[in-house]
């Protein structure tokens, strides 16, 4: 299947999580923090830490390690605290 990450088409497979897709592409960070504007990516990998937040289909604060990709998902990096679009 195909998904998009920051506008670029990326190949993905059934069962992969957003974090799985991005790490397999060598992408380590997909969010910046609200306070210090620091890069963050995956940390706990099992849905506990909420560090790997990402915007999926216009909805922010989605845990990349928990969200399984679906055909056509529009995945975007998240800057600080975002409101749903």
């Amino acid at each position, binding site marked *: 299947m195909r998904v998009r990450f920051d506008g670029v088409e990326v190949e993905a*497979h*059934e*069962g*992969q*999580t957003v*974090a*799985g897709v991005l*790490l*397999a592409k060598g992408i*380590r*960070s997909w969010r910046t*923090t*609200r*306070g*210090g504007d*620091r*890069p*963050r*990516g*995956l*940390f*706990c*990998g*099992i*849905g*506990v*830490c*909420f*560090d790997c*937040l990402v915007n*999926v289909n216009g*909805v922010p*604060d*989605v*845990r990349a*390690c*928990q*969200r*399984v990709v*679906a055909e056509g998902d529009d995945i975007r990096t998240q800057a600080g605290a975002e409101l*749903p679009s």
Partner: protein
Amino acid sequence: MRRIVVIGAGPAGLAAANAAALHGVEVVLIDAGAKLGGQYHRQDALAAGDRFELPRNVEHVANAAVWAIEPVDGGHRVHLRVGPADGPDRKGRAVEARALVLATGAYDRALPFPGWDLPGVFTAGAAQAMAKGQGVAVGDRVVVGGTGPFLLPVAASLIGAGARVVEVAEANAAVTGWLANPKGALAGWSKTGELMRYAGTLARHRVPYRSRTAVIEAHGSDCVESVTVARLDALWNPVPGSERRLEADAVAVGFGFTPQLELALAARCRVEDGFVAVDAVQGTSAPGVFAAGELTGIGGAELAASEGAVAGAAAAKFVGAAVEPPVRAMAKVRSGRRFAAALNAAYPVRSGWHDWLRDDTIVCRCEEVTKRALFRAVDERDVGAVRSLKLVSGAGLGLCQGRVCGRNVAELAGVDATGFAKRPIASPIRLAELAEEEPVESPIDAEESGRALGVEY
């Protein structure tokens, strides 16, 4: 209909569901994952099918977030959202049952160190989950650090996923020391064979395994580029002059595990020394609420499964099924707990880690609270317990609700950490989801539940 709800489909929850189903009880088995097995039996998410099969009277509710448990007349109501994680289209459900088995497991404890907030620093569990579940290594050159036997399978999984493991740094004594010749309390432990195989994998790949060593700093501007490891003294203070710089693009660290207590606390279970207190049939202090697995003490998958079998049988009996006492599983629980106690005593977390931190080291990742800010808040304000600690410092107020920083900042501030798990909303949900009233499925018949119940065998 006799029905119980089991929360968590890892080794404990699976065993509980199977045991209760065997006694003719209808089981609703709720889990966050897409497939059964939890963290220990994590399945390859990219492969088709499920390794585990459940009896027909078990309904497996996958991809579900349980966000609240509330008491109702004669039992408990469990609130969940089912569907794509954190998405706005999840379906709300409310399930009632007279008995619950909580098997929510545990997650890695991560200790802070300078640079631990850089992308490329992961928990050991993350490295394991990504390798086993997603078939991807978290880095090309990975340093594994922390304490306990869990570091061995993590390193082996990383190698299996194609990473080069640069070093395994064990902060306590080497696991490999007693593994070859287990004596004393660990003699006869069934896991030694499995751990020996992992140790063999490390040896074949010439991975250095060092005891009394820890990763005390990660370096890099936007990502991990190298780490500093150091020898530790008996209290985990770095030995001056022992520092070595290792080139690595990832670090996986784990210092034992923290139980997921929030649902147990919501169900009003008594917690002792950080774990849910249970009796001989895994009953908690809350009537009709049973707990099994890492919630009751860190002991591994085998003990968790035995506890689950005991808890499932007891829950089935509680709702009126005819149940013989599961004496074999109960005996396995007793022996399993002895090994677990010996293991936990061998791999403690020592306070020397406090000195790994610098003033500007972040202690709460969500709210970006530094050590300096935490100590200033504690020094200047009257911090009595977790609630005031959170309010004056900001630590633990973020989205993870103190799951990652809670035990660490409580230890630094000198307060009991259990309060961090008191969360009216057990896992973050969206406001619209909170506002929605879900239909209650098969509500409890209060008259039927008025009968005297118990699990005395």
